């Protein structure tokens, strides 16, 4: 079975620095992959190239066997990629319901979009907020709204950049459960820092560092990997 998503020597330069440095990455259909790594490792830049927000400086991105390198964001979105960005990108002037309906409208009619939006709001327990203006919501709530908007377009590949940022512990658990459920018929890549959360959901983990893939494997072997520990705790520090 060919991979759902593949990158070949994908690179992005900023000035003199390779934020993403010749990365070869493969993702199978139905996977739930976590991307971890210290700040500045290139994870968000990688994501932005996958969804078309940034043009790669070199290399290729292949989705379902077709090259989408350098395609416009809306073209990539139409091919079934949805992204929840690191800083929630929302319609601050609209209500929660209007935002989610608008997302659903892309593939549905007015009537069915309204119903799908209702269903989504209920499953994400946003229904009490449905007439709240998005701009007035707390950070954690905004994350849920953005997630709903992404899911409303029913994308095959879901990219989540730090979905639990700003969430309380019980919300994190709820998110983990939701992600496992989404994984039943979607493929996901999740960028995260919260190790407990990753343990709740992860199977395969890819570790980024300085624009390259440092290690890749099952969560337990990654956590035991000395190189990974060095990178997180700082190289060359005296260890007790």
């Amino acid at each position, binding site marked *: 079975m060919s991979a759902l998503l593949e990158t070949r020597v994908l690179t992005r330069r900023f000035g003199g620095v390779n934020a993403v440095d010749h990365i070869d990455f493969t993702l199978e259909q139905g996977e739930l992959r976590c991307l971890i790594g210290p700040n500045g490792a290139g994870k968000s830049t990688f994501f932005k190239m996958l*969804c*078309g*927000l940034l043009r790669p400086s070199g290399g290729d991105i292949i989705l379902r066997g077709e090259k989408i390198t350098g395609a*416009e*964001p*809306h*073209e990539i*979105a*139409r091919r079934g990629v*949805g*992204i929840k*960005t690191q800083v929630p*990108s*929302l*319609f*601050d*002037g*609209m*209500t929660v319901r*209007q935002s989610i309906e*608008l*997302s659903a*409208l*892309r*593939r549905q009619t*007015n009537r069915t979009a309204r119903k799908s939006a209702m269903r989504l709001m209920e499953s994400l327990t946003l229904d009490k907020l449905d007439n709240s*203006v998005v701009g007035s919501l707390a950070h954690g709530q905004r994350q849920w709204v953005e997630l709903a*908007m992404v899911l409303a*377009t029913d994308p095959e590949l879901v990219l989540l950049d730090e979905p639990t940022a700003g969430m309380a512990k019980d919300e994190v658990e709820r998110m983990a459960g939701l992600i496992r459920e989404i994984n039943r018929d979607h493929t996901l890549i999740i960028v995260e820092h919260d190790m407990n959360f990753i343990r709740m959901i992860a199977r395969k983990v890819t570790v980024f560092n300085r624009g390259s893939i440092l290690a890749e494997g099952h969560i337990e072997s990654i956590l035991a990997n000395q190189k990974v520990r060095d990178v997180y705790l700082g190289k060359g520090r005296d260890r007790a």
Partner: protein
Amino acid sequence: MRFQSTFGMALMGGAGAFLIFALPRLVEPFVLVDLTVYATLAMLTMSLAFVWGYCGILSFGQSVFFGIGGYVYAVGVLNIGDSTLPIALAIALAMAFAAMLAYFMFWGRISDVYLAVITLTVSLIFFLVINSTSGGEYKIGIVSLGGYNGIPGLPPLNLPGNPDRAFDFKEMYVLTVAVALASYFLLCWTLTTRFGRVIVAIRENEVRTALLGYDPRRYKLAAYVVGAGFAGLSGALYAATGGLINPDVFDFAFAAQIIVSVIIGGLGTLAGPILAVVGVQWLVAWLGKTKITDANIILGAIFVAFVLFAPAGAIPTLRKLAASWQARRRARRSKSAEGIR
């Protein structure tokens, strides 16, 4: 987020009914002519309110489509002799030009400010070029473009297919007001469709809208072309009402008048700018008559004052003030109910 308040629509509907059925019995015919001109300006301002306030496209040169509509009507009606086709051509050519311009701008990822600059410059190019077409050699068909004098002697609209049955003042008035009203409700309705909602979403957050799979360039082009169509129609009606079109419709001052009306009336409403442009036009005409002072001084001062103190526009600012006043009253009332001094 208000797509269009029901209050605004009711107001427009009521005002429209009054204007069409009651007013003609109450005033002299020449007042009706003035009001007809106001109606065309209201349509133009509405088109800018739609394109700028709702779609976020800074079309500072929106009046260029008004001018194109007026000139196409003029050239058309004097060449053809019947007004029906020229009106259609006015709308079509304005929209075609808008499509070209939009493709040029939106596919080039031109940002806000430069959009404003470019559209304004295009208007100025038209002004300069047409202004210099004095002299009989600049003709389209049998019609001289006339340079800075413009094209006079334009016949009013006639019944479609019957060039001898021209509309009189009252009929032009009713027709124009009805068209303006219909445009208002049409634009309101457009904003409730999927197209309208995507357009507003693009203004709110273009990146997010693209990430949901909508192509912002196509939607913006469509919105811009729609706005240009209304502007072009209003320009043609303006020419038909006054019997004259000249390059002044392409100049900075006219563009400024429309823009300041949208600012005063408020970005994000359709009704506000309509009231504002009527007010501004009336003020300009009144100052011209009474010669108290140069209209530019007052217009300029109003412009600056609004940008500094009420940049969201008169109606939205009033709304906000009203809302915060109500909130303070409620807080005070609940405090006194609890016996707090």
